[in-house]
């Protein structure tokens, strides 16, 4: 029996193989105790490492490094794809000039060749989609939907010139009853945790502060954080 290479086993254990490879690998593993044992060991180690990293790092609630890594990979793909899609979306229609060009004796279009190219593109697209790991495919789909929703939102509300989706790319200072946070790209980091007894103040140019009477010294202390330009 021919065993898969260790890298393939690791990808399978992490759920990172495409559909076809996953299916063939699953068939092999069902018949091969050695590989099955290897996959089981890798999955246990992954789970232990997740627990360990959660304990080691003082992560904000809900922050998952594994998820972050997936999002980063997905965002690179989405960025490239979205750039091309938006560039096409923003281009003015050129139907009339194309017709004119055809009439002016441009090389005749071979419809057969065009059909072959289109067919090849469809096959390539399906192959790409099915080879993509499930989580990344879902992430890619969700990202496209988000981009579409944002663009439609801008078109529906032209009065809001320059409107953007909340939390998309803005750097935000957030003063809440429990902390002052800086938030960028939708992720928040707590800068000044404080108690309910503190007085929070926000100034329009972009600073936020917390004032409290220090329990030990009795001093009135104000901690502030600023935007970069101040």
């Amino acid at each position, binding site marked *: 029996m021919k065993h898969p290479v260790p*890298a393939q086993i690791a990808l399978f254990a992490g759920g990172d193989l495409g559909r076809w490879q996953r299916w063939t690998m699953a068939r092999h593993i069902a018949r091969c105790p050695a590989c099955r044992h290897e996959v089981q060991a890798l999955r246990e180690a992954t789970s232990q*490492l*997740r627990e*360990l990293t959660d304990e080691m790092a003082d992560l904000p609630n809900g922050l998952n490094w*594994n998820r972050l890594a997936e999002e980063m990979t997905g965002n690179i793909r989405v960025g490239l794809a979205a750039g091309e899609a938006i560039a096409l979306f923003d281009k003015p229609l050129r139907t009339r000039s194309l017709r004119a060009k055809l009439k002016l004796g441009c090389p005749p279009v071979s419809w057969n060749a065009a059909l072959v190219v289109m067919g090849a593109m469809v096959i390539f697209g399906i192959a790409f989609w099915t080879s993509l790991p499930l989580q990344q495919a879902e992430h890619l789909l969700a990202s496209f939907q988000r981009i579409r929703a944002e663009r439609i*939102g801008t078109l529906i509300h032209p009065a809001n*010139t320059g409107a953007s989706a*909340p939390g998309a790319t803005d750097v935000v200072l957030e003063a809440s009853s429990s902390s002052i946070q800086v938030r960028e790209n939708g992720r928040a980091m707590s800068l000044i945790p404080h108690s309910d007894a503190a007085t929070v103040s926000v100034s329009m140019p972009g600073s936020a502060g917390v004032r409290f009477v220090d329990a030990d010294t009795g001093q009135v202390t104000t*901690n*502030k954080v600023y935007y970069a330009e101040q």
Partner: protein
Amino acid sequence: MRSSSALATCALFLIPCNSVVFAAALPKIDLPPDSPVVLLSADYGESNETARGGAMLLDFHAALSLRNSSQRKIRGITLLVTAQDVTPGGKGSVTVTSLDVGPQETFPVRIDLRLLRPLQASSGVPVEIGLDGVLFDDLTFYGPDKLSSRRTLTLSEWEARRDRRYFKSVLAAGGQEKLRQEMLDSLTHQADRPSLDVEVVRGARATSFEPEKQVQFAFLSLPDSPVEPMGGMARIAGNEARAPRLEVKNRSDRAIRYLEVGWILHDRSGREFLAGSVPADLNLAPGQKSQILGDATLKFPQLGGQPLGIEGMTGFVSSVEFADGTMWIPTRSDMEAPQLKRVVAPSDEEQRLAQIYRKKGMKALIAELNKF
């Protein structure tokens, strides 16, 4: 490299990573040679730095012991704490007000901040602490004043003097019982004051897709104010207020170089909150009018789990700085106006005095008032 596989591979090595106590590179404390304060000791306790995505998060704790090396009493101090000057969230400050530190006396300053800096700058000194300013009891100031500390500290000292004078007059007129009642009222007010989560988004552009409307400001009339608000409006969309535009007139006989307008919001159910302040550096001659433009957006995520619907706004002049450096602040009777009293926090000094009363009792409070 695919993430889960990377995790599986890393699991074989179990590499400890992430959080590091920055003992290797201690924070740099930079006080000028002629500084009126001298550093006696510094303890950095549990300070550490942690990699978070593309940035390092510095959880910085310091207990500094400083000595007043000048010949005057110190009333307030601001320290600038910098992890990275150009990173949002990379710069913070710690201000201590209502001090009474005589020459050669020592006083503590505690710093508890979290700051961000890029991963690339992870070598070298993690945090720099500098002096931004010191205010003395004669209202003179020392320091580079990069954070407008002179104004902040002076304003706080003016409020402190106003409130100490007020509580002394209460004691003189109504005795300990009246002063006790004032302190209890203050503590109740501090506990009951409505608070609101606020997000400040730099740049006055809309981030909400709800229809936008222009809402006019109503203004609280403060009879002694040297500035008269003539009118104003802001753009409101859902739970978001942006681009406030105010017109003000200098009705005093002195030139004004700075003023600050407090901003109170009303929601659909009639509740009121102090949303923030709109400061403005300007040069306003006597009798002259000017416009103040805010360039940020304030968002109010929710209130008790429900989105906040903004229905109206009220503005009030909260402080004015004249060209000669003197300041105007609302009087105690101005602050007693029901709308202001409900939403505006007591001054630094009032909070400090109320805490002295709460922790040490009436005798300690009277002794504290008599020190000034």
